[in-house]
């Protein structure tokens, strides 16, 4: 299981417990932010990779 799946699974486990509306709201926000972080990490790594392989530098 990768880090993203692990984190989302952890949050979903918390969400399935009897918690308050306020706690659910912050956990949903956490889930959104974590997903966005992993998306940006993937995109940034891809950009870095792309820039490293510029034919001009070969």
């Amino acid at each position, binding site marked *: 299981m990768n880090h993203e799946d692990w984190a989302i699974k952890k949050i979903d486990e*918390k969400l399935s417990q009897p918690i308050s509306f306020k706690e659910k709201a*912050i956990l949903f926000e956490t889930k959104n932010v*974590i997903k966005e972080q992993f998306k940006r*990490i993937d995109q940034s790594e891809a950009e870095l990779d792309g820039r490293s392989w510029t034919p001009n530098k070969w």
Partner: protein
Amino acid sequence: MKTLIIISHPEILDSATQSFLKATQKSFDNVTWHSLEVDYDNDLNKLDIEYEKQLLKENDRIIFQFPLYWYSAPASLKKWQDEVLTRTFTYKEDEGLLKGKELGIVTSIGNSLDHFQAGGFENFSLSEILIPYQALAKRAGMMFMKPLIIDQFIYMNEETKYNLYISYQKYISTKQDMNFTEKTNWLIDQLTNHYDLNNNDIIDQLKINKDDLDDLKMQINLMRQDEEG
């Protein structure tokens, strides 16, 4: 930062939207909830102008909160504006006691937000409809905040309400237009200091990701600079 929320709503006690927002702001110490109808017992002729001015002076962010009635606020807010916002007090060229403060609008609408655009059912955007408040902010030397629009609250599902809960908290208590790093920091602070969810592992993951992203951004910037010479 201190925030004053001025609510104008003739049926506030029956409003599900206002009850939701009231419950949302409860945990904030620096936020004043000021309902014109409740605080003046539905009689705006009792408006205490000096008290209202004092409230305005004491707060940094002023929020007008109301349901949109005929493309404007209910009459109580207009009366409040006409009587409290006197020329000398308000005009930035005069005493300008609101200068440098922020003006925010939280408004609820009964139909869908996408009706409010050119060619839509209403044909005008909410930015156009709310222009009088932008003009007021400009005249007073205030910074006009991007309005928070709540459309069709009664049809919202749970997840949309969670989003509204968080958006409203940010609207009343954080700086405007936070970038992604700032939003992440806000979230880490909330989870660390305001919730007891026993979730240090999640907080650690947020921090690790934030550091990774900062590091990647720095590397990309260095490469860009290198490419651009």
